[in-house]
């Protein structure tokens, strides 16, 4: 097993796993306690439109996806912040529109030869150094956001009206949170793909939430769990020659079911 991690690509994958896991732990915790899972799903799937556009115009797919995800994040933050009715339907439309746009744009791209499967199911074993730089950038942004605004984020998540009366700029903070979610989602897509991104964002925080009574330690525990899932998933995938992203999520899902049954059995 030590041999396995002697390979460069494996070391990159491992390093990427840690970066992705911390991003997942922090952003995933905020998504779960703010009940924004569906918003994250909308951004993740909608960002496929960005990949299609990037292929068509010949720019880097991940850059296209990031910009498009940020744009969708702004739209969704605006819609949800207005408290309009049928928010879930509107997000559903954005979700489907992005995917359709992505498919149409790749159809229109002459002789496309990019491995789209890697965006759908992730390609953590082939992360490049550039990917690592991008991930590190988002890692720093997300950590800075969570640390600097910890008090305000906690107050908004727990009781937004009270936070507003205490002078917290809820609008700005909420937009910030959705944009951080968009960036986080894009990074996680690189690891496990846009189909599975929701699992890595929600399973670790869901399990962690049961084990703690503070938001900070929930972030820490979910990051550690996420690292654990990624490492075990990577090892299993290389031993049995399985997809890395799907193996990671399988480990996470099995842990989720064990934890779920355990808590049911205990009560």
């Amino acid at each position: 097993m030590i041999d396995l991690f002697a390979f460069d690509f494996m070391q990159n994958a491992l390093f990427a796993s840690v970066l992705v896991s911390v991003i997942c732990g922090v952003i995933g915790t905020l998504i779960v306690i703010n009940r924004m899972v569906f918003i994250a799903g909308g951004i993740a799937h909608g960002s496929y439109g960005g990949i299609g556009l990037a292929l068509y115009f010949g720019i880097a797919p991940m850059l296209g996806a990031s910009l498009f995800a940020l744009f969708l994040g702004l739209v969704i933050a605006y819609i949800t912040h207005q408290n309009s009715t049928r928010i879930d339907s509107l997000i559903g439309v954005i979700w489907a529109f992005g995917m359709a746009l992505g498919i149409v744009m790749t159809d229109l791209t002459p002789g496309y030869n990019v491995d789209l499967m890697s965006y759908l199911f992730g390609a953590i074993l082939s992360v490049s150094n550039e990917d690592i730089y991008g991930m590190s950038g988002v890692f720093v942004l997300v950590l800075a956001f969570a640390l600097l605004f910890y008090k305000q984020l906690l107050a908004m998540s727990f009781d937004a009206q009270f936070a507003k009366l205490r002078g917290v700029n809820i609008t700005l903070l909420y937009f910030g949170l959705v944009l951080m979610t968009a960036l986080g989602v894009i990074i996680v897509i690189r690891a496990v793909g846009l189909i599975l991104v929701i699992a890595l964002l929600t399973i670790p925080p869901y399990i962690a939430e049961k084990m703690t009574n503070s938001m900070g330690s929930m972030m820490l525990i979910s990051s550690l769990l996420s690292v654990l899932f990624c490492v075990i998933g990577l090892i299993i995938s290389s031993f049995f020659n399985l997809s890395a992203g799907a193996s990671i999520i399988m480990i996470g899902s099995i842990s989720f079911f064990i934890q779920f049954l355990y808590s049911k059995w205990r009560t």
Partner: protein
Amino acid sequence: MQNDIEINNLFFSYDGTSVLEDITLQYNSKDFLAIIGPNGGGKSTLLKMMIGLLKPLHGEVLLFGKNPLHVSHEIAYVPQDTIANKDFPIKVLDVVLMGRLSKSKFFAPYSKEDYAIAYEMLDKVGMKGFENQKINALSGGQRQRVFIARALACDAKIIFLDEPTASIDTAGQMNMFQLLKTLNKTVGIVIVSHDVNVALNYATKVAHVNKTLYLHDVSKEESFALAQNPKEHICPIELICARRCNHLHKELL
């Protein structure tokens, strides 16, 4: 003298349906004001307008003579006990610390002084020793006490409470109102309640809101005077039908 809350000819409607009409009210923080009335009568709406969470359609609301949102650091709000987020990972102490948000530095963690105040306020509401409990492990009544401690930690001049006893048993309700009554010696209390007994036993002013507002004074000296004069009194019927009751009370004669 300037009133702490001054509402003049206020109108409000939700999507064209009129909810409040021509409301006028003065309040000073020495009073314990109960806003009562039927469901859908506009009680909570009026409260939210007093603290600036909603804007009136016509008319004005002045809090300490200013726009409510500009003085929101001077007041505190205790919402209805509706935590849908059952597993929210937060300790009692961290909830109370939220009251220090506008007083503490923006980027820094809470200071020692903030912690000291949080402990003091928990003691004041009888929740000492619960600091490290998860908020959702508490009963409804205990949770409301924590929210009151959070409001006290704000250094507020008036505390607004929206149906704070909706999910509490009768004994718990009496404790809660006794606590509020004690607190009223130093801070203003404005409470929305559907419970007429509260209004009769604890409030010094009762505003009956059902689209329009009818204000009853039940301050101590006056209630004595009222008792002397059968034509000038306050009785439960008045509170329910929101107008002066003119029948004779035999027990007062």
